[in-house]
């Protein structure tokens, strides 16, 4: 079956995202847009995943718990997990590798954690916008150990991207799927960088505002609409 996806959506926990990126707003917007499966991927944290997953389950939209990790090379990796407990185990590791600095909401924005009723539970005061002290290789190792998957984020961009920062994709990493950003024309990109033509490309929104979330425009073919079937395709 063909499902409409958007595996890169930020909530108001990401300092750079709108404060109306609440669990209910996101899930309802995804329903309006007709998406089948999404992933919640805040910077270096998964603390809004649970609320979004609960709402998604009630409303028939599959929500994958995820995180956008910023490695020490300043490369963004979309890390997706099978369930919330695995995602939380990964978060514990990541929190231990964040710099011991506090977020400054005035400069970077607030980092809000919600429950499934969109009530503010608390604000996270860690510096989530920073790089964690883990290399790309180490993040791959840790995520694979937890049976998660990794999709290098917005590789068509020059900043915070695996190809932009490292020049090309390290051979040793078993990467099959790459993400390109919302406005990227994949054919034009491959025309310029034909060495990447053997990868699978998926398009996500990297939404920081509700209106950024994709329409039914990015699809993958899966056996069943569940996390396991999606991982089988992307892995």
């Amino acid at each position, binding site marked *: 079956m063909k499902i409409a996806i958007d595996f890169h959506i930020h909530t108001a926990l990401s300092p750079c995202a709108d404060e109306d990126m609440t669990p209910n707003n996101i899930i309802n917007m995804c329903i309006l847009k007709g998406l089948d499966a999404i992933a919640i991927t805040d910077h270096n944290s998964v603390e809004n995943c649970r609320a979004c997953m609960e709402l998604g389950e009630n409303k028939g939209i599959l929500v994958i718990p995820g995180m956008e990790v910023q490695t020490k*090379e300043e490369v963004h990796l979309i890390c997706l997990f099978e369930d919330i407990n695995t995602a939380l185990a990964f978060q514990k590791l990541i929190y231990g590798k964040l710099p011991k600095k506090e977020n400054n909401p005035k400069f970077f924005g607030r980092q809000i954690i919600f429950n499934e009723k969109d009530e503010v539970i608390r604000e996270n005061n860690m510096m989530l916008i920073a790089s964690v002290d883990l*290399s*790309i*290789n180490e993040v791959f190792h840790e995520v694979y150990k937890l049976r998660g998957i990794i999709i290098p984020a917005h590789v068509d961009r*020059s900043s915070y991207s695996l*190809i*932009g*920062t*490292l*020049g*090309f994709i*390290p051979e*040793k990493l078993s990467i099959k799927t790459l993400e390109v950003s919302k406005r990227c024309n994949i054919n034009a990109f491959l025309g310029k960088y034909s060495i990447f033509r053997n990868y699978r490309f998926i398009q996500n929104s990297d939404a920081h505002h509700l209106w950024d979330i994709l329409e039914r425009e990015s699809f993958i073919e899966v056996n069943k609409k569940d996390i396991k079937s999606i991982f089988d395709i992307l892995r």
Partner: protein
Amino acid sequence: MQVKNLIEKENFKLITNDKDISKEIKGLYCCDLLSWVMSHAKAGDAWITVQTHMNIVAVASLLDISCIIIPESIEIDKETIDKANEENIPILSTNLNSYEIFCKMHELGLR
């Protein structure tokens, strides 16, 4: 100036094996975005970067860089050092920052 002239100075420590240290340093380039380096650095440049990922060796080898200089005593991944030995790319470590490296090289006659 050759790579080995730098190693004799106390601020620069060779962390790869000593093959190819007679390479001529023709210029100096500093950048951490590897795709940018690939399109802008020149053959014979000594390249200063805070990146320690293995891909720095591939980029250096692609461009025929004379040596890689890692500033501010940043720790270097072992697999990067192994790869550099394999590809005969000298890597130097120094406690100097990029500006101080430029000053030092100018003092040593790189114009």
